[in-house]
């Protein structure tokens, strides 16, 4: 899976599952603010990532994810790791 595919997939579930306005999704936008995430939403984010990319996010991983760009990069790395294994 390349970066473009990851971005497309992430943006799609952001719009469909988290009901984010498409126009608000930008690489430098802050993920937490854009999604108006509270502690319960992170639980759902874990589920959506598992369903779409087949790996389980650890809670502490979110500490390092600030922007959408960070999020895309994180997923891309995890997907690549998974493919190597």
């Amino acid at each position, binding site marked *: 899976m390349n970066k473009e595919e990851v971005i497309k997939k992430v943006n799609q579930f952001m719009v469909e*599952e*988290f*009901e984010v306005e498409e126009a608000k999704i930008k690489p430098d936008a802050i993920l937490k603010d854009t999604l108006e995430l*509270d502690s*319960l*939403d992170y*639980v*759902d984010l*874990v*589920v959506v990532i*598992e369903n779409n990319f087949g790996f*389980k996010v650890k809670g502490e991983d979110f500490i390092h994810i600030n922007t959408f760009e960070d999020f895309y990069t994180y997923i891309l790395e995890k997907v690549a790791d998974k493919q190597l294994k």
Partner: protein
Amino acid sequence: MNRVVITGFGAYSCLGRNVEEIKQSLYTGKSGIGFDPERKAMGFRSAYTGMLEKPNLKGMLDRRMRIGLAEQGEYAYLSTYEALQMAKMEQDFREANEVGILYGNDSSARATIEAIDKIREKQDTTLLGSGSVFQSMNSTVTMNLATIFKLKGINFTVSGACASGSHAIGMGYILIKHGWQQAVVCGGAQEVNPYAMGSFDALGTFSVREGDARLASRPFDKGRDGLVPSGGAATVIIESYEHAVKRGAPILAEIIGYGFSSNGGHISQPNVDGPVRAIEMSIKDAAIETGKIDYINAHATSTPVGDMYEAKALDTVFGASRPLISSTKSMTGHECWMAGASEIVYSLLMMQNSFVAPNINFENPDEDSAKLNIATKTTEKAINTFLSNSFGFGGTNSSLIVQKISN
């Protein structure tokens, strides 16, 4: 003591998605019962059920509010929205005042079973997502609606089997009567799916009558062979009279009596004494003569034994005055946890529109129902006062009396 009035009501049932649709169904004696192939495939004795359209709340509620709602919570959201609109009780008012919620609900089987299935499959609880726990708990309706509608008064669920909805209204009535609350959202909700009804089907209490599903639920009829499960949700907004007047709310009716009892006997088989005591307690509370009751919405579910005991109880108390009686379960099936609330809503619609809805499928009386004045057809009639019975497993009984408002 405060007078307790009804200022709004709403419902979502197999008779319609709102009270206007439901009024038409009641008037025309339309059955909401159908055949569910999924139940047949699952090995149910009976595949009959109330047929409801699944609501789509996208666009009405945001994601966070939607994902905690179980099926019955979705119905309850819609009925409560309708009731609050009718009561003209807006969010600004609710946020500034202590409006409570007491709702009848006694299961959330689908949400619970689906969660357990997923844990077994994935061996991981985090993959349930955040909504599962709020859908699975028995208090799912009250916890969600209190959050959605910003309610700040009393907040809990009443679980009293098939009398849950009626007891919820009764509890709200007591709190307002004694001045502990000024306004409470009351009601009952019932999920409609095979998971909720499998163990009930196992008891052999559901109708297995062959042929037209609409003929299966036949309370008081000699040929009845069991109930038909159903569901949805119904809400009534109750307030103290002074509170309703002060905020300029439409005052639609007054709750004047509540009676309750426990049979102290068999877990599923009812008796005559328990219901009689609940009915008599409600009449005493209302301080009226039995002859003042114009209409009785019977609990009668269409089981051979249950209807027989209720018929005997009604004859014991009302043998002299013989008011018109019907069981709307002939059209709806048994709405279980919701029934005590929905049957108040159905009776309010009859009161407002001066008719008694028919006890459809009542073709031949048996020895006990022959003594009752059962409405077999829609009957034009002014209703000033009605009584509604609800009984449940464990021998819980509830009777409510509602009267047209008099200033």
